């Protein structure tokens, strides 16, 4: 196998044009997948016999929740790589991903509330998963505010990286504590655990939407990393 020098693309200079070339494809894929996914969600998937039509919000809610957690992991991965290899691009990628991750977390919470109202008659339940999602939003907000508060870009990247890694170590502990807390107060809240059995078309719709969100996240991160490079290293961006 021909050895590809991956580190070549770790320099903003060579990544900038690459990101520019890839971005439209991911955006197009995301649009296409959303159209198909939403079609499946609204016209193909059967009506739920318990919840009626309102359940269809899970086609947004569940993939958004998946993405919110996954993006944090990817962010922490970039952050760790940045600290170990001291590459500039890693910090930029982590910071480019964070707003998208926060957006999906917010979307998951918002759609969760919208789903909760018709289903359980309340906008918010202190369910383990919803609570963890809320805490995840706090972690994203912490990352975004810390990196925004530091003027020196290198310090911002590296401090953000430490925070993201600390967060990633804590997420399982926080999740565990919240689940445990929730089972302790089971009587007081409604559990989301008894999810209805899923039809295959529902699953397909959800997976399509998840893929669409994936493509969107990549496109958004690439777009954002390009503007970060333009801002910080005008030279790298201009020579293309």
């Amino acid at each position, binding site marked *: 196998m021909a050895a590809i020098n991956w580190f070549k693309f770790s320099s903003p200079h060579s990544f900038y044009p690459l990101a520019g070339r890839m971005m439209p494809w991911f955006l197009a894929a995301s649009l296409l997948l959303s159209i198909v996914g939403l079609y499946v969600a609204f016209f193909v998937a059967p009506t739920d016999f318990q919840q009626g039509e309102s359940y269809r919000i899970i086609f947004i809610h569940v993939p958004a929740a998946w993405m919110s957690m996954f993006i944090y992991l990817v962010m922490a991965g970039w952050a760790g790589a940045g600290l170990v290899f001291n590459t500039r691009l890693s910090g930029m990628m982590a910071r480019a991903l964070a707003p998208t991750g926060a957006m999906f977390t917010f979307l998951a919470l918002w759609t969760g509330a919208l789903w909760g109202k018709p289903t359980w008659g309340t906008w918010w339940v202190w369910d383990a998963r919803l609570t963890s999602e809320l805490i995840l939003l706090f972690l994203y907000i912490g990352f975004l505010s810390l990196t925004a508060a530091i003027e020196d*870009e290198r310090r911002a990247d590296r401090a953000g990286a430490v925070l993201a890694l600390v967060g990633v170590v804590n997420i399982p502990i926080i999740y565990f504590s919240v689940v445990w807390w929730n089972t302790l107060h089971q009587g007081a809240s409604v559990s989301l655990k008894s999810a209805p059995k899923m039809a295959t078309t529902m699953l397909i719709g959800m997976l399509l939407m998840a893929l669409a969100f994936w493509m969107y996240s990549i496109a958004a991160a690439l777009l954002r990393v390009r503007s970060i490079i333009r801002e910080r290293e005008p030279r790298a961006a201009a020579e293309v």
Partner: protein
Amino acid sequence: MLAAQSLQCVRGGRHLFENLSFAVPGGTLLRITGANGAGKTSLLRILCGLLLPSGGEVLWRDAPIRQQREDYWRELRYIGHLAGVKDEFTAEENLVFAAALSGIDIKSAAAHAALDQLGMGKFAHLPVRMLSQGQRRRVALARLALPDSNAALWVLDEPLAALDTDATDCVLSLIDARLAAGAVVVMTSHQPFSVAAALHSISIPV
């Protein structure tokens, strides 16, 4: 003994210097000159290992300082533009603590003697809060007068600024003595000075 290999420093998007290399043997004074904002303090902080260079390497006894860490710092004494003394403590307490951080155990009598050398003996038991800026500076510099056989590298950021003639002479004689003992001294200074030992000078271009 101390060497820099093609150091590069980028701060806040500004390229301060690149391709800066030098090597100085023991017993040499390295004077760093350059205009304001040229990156003198950044270079000193890179030599201390406080600031990671954007490129290049600092070598101490032929090994990168990144790998030596505490072993390197045990031999390094850095006096930056912040005095590094606590307001709540007396001058003497400050010296004893500063020595402890460098891994040397001194008695308060030794601290008192060091303060005496810089003309601060009679203020040794006053909280530093009550001293003037110039006097605080002397308390910081009194670290150089401590009995400290480990110190093989002094990095001093403008040690002569805001000192009167007596104190300047005292600091210069301390530097001379340390150089004679085979140490390397790196310093910046706006005012002219002379030492007995070999002087090596590098200038950071703007």
